[in-house]
């Protein structure tokens, strides 16, 4: 890291992958996951409406079918990834204390990963019928 006493110009410092060292990767992935959810939203809402008023046995049967499991898995991956990036932007905008910011970004990663893995586990369990 170059501090304020560095001889490098600000331009030199942000060249290539910039201050974040990851370039526009998050910007791109935020849009990639957004587009995938635009495509998935109608099937996902259809699945949810199919489940209204059904008991656990009926719901488990529908959720465990291959096309529905795949649709939900894709949506879970896209949405948890999207919300991880989005919340990080919010944290970076409002949390100015460096240590608190790092802790918040870390907690955000843990939360999104836990939600993703829990939901994926549930779908796989329903699909395998265990």
């Amino acid at each position, binding site marked *: 890291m*170059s501090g*304020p*006493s*560095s*001889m*490098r*110009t600000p331009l*030199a410092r942000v060249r290539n992958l910039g201050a974040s060292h990851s370039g526009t990767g998050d910007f791109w992935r935020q*849009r990639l996951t*957004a*587009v995938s*959810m*635009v495509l998935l*939203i109608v099937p996902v*809402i259809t699945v949810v*409406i*199919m*489940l*209204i*008023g*059904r*008991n*656990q*046995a009926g*719901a*488990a049967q529908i*959720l465990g079918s291959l096309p529905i499991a795949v649709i*939900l898995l894709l949506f879970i991956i896209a*949405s*948890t990834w999207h*919300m991880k990036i*989005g*919340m990080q932007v*919010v944290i970076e905008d409002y949390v100015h204390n460096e240590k608190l910011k790092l802790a918040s970004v870390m907690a955000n990663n843990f939360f999104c990963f836990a*939600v993703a893995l*829990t*939901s994926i*586990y*549930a*779908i796989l*369990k*329903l699909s395998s019928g265990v």
Partner: protein
Amino acid sequence: MGRPRSHNNIKPPMTARIERPLSPHLQTYRWTLTMALSIVHRATGIALYFGTLLLAWWLIAAASGPTAYANVQAFTGSVIGKLIVFGYTWALMHHLVSGIRHFVWDLGYGFKANEREALTWGALVAGVSLTVLIWIIAYAVGGGR
């Protein structure tokens, strides 16, 4: 470390913070619809972030068994549960159409004043309309089960 690039021997002040003019803070500006909806986009995103807990709970319950699933249904069937799910539906629909509006801007279109306003009103109206439409379909399809 880069090489010094200056064309003369004068070194720029490296330690002292240069006092540059700042742009006026957000509060100085007249409140506009696009500003309000910018905040709403972020707020709905944050609401959806925590709303995924409900989605994860529902999936885990379906995978766990009848008792766990009945607990979720008791919650989503209650007045507070219905309000939360309705709010979640609106947040999702609004964030979706508002996000599509951002795509239009990402592609370089819709920056004129009237276009900005039209896109923003469109997102607001479409978000509410889609929410109501989904709930009508949900009651029509699932209400009798």
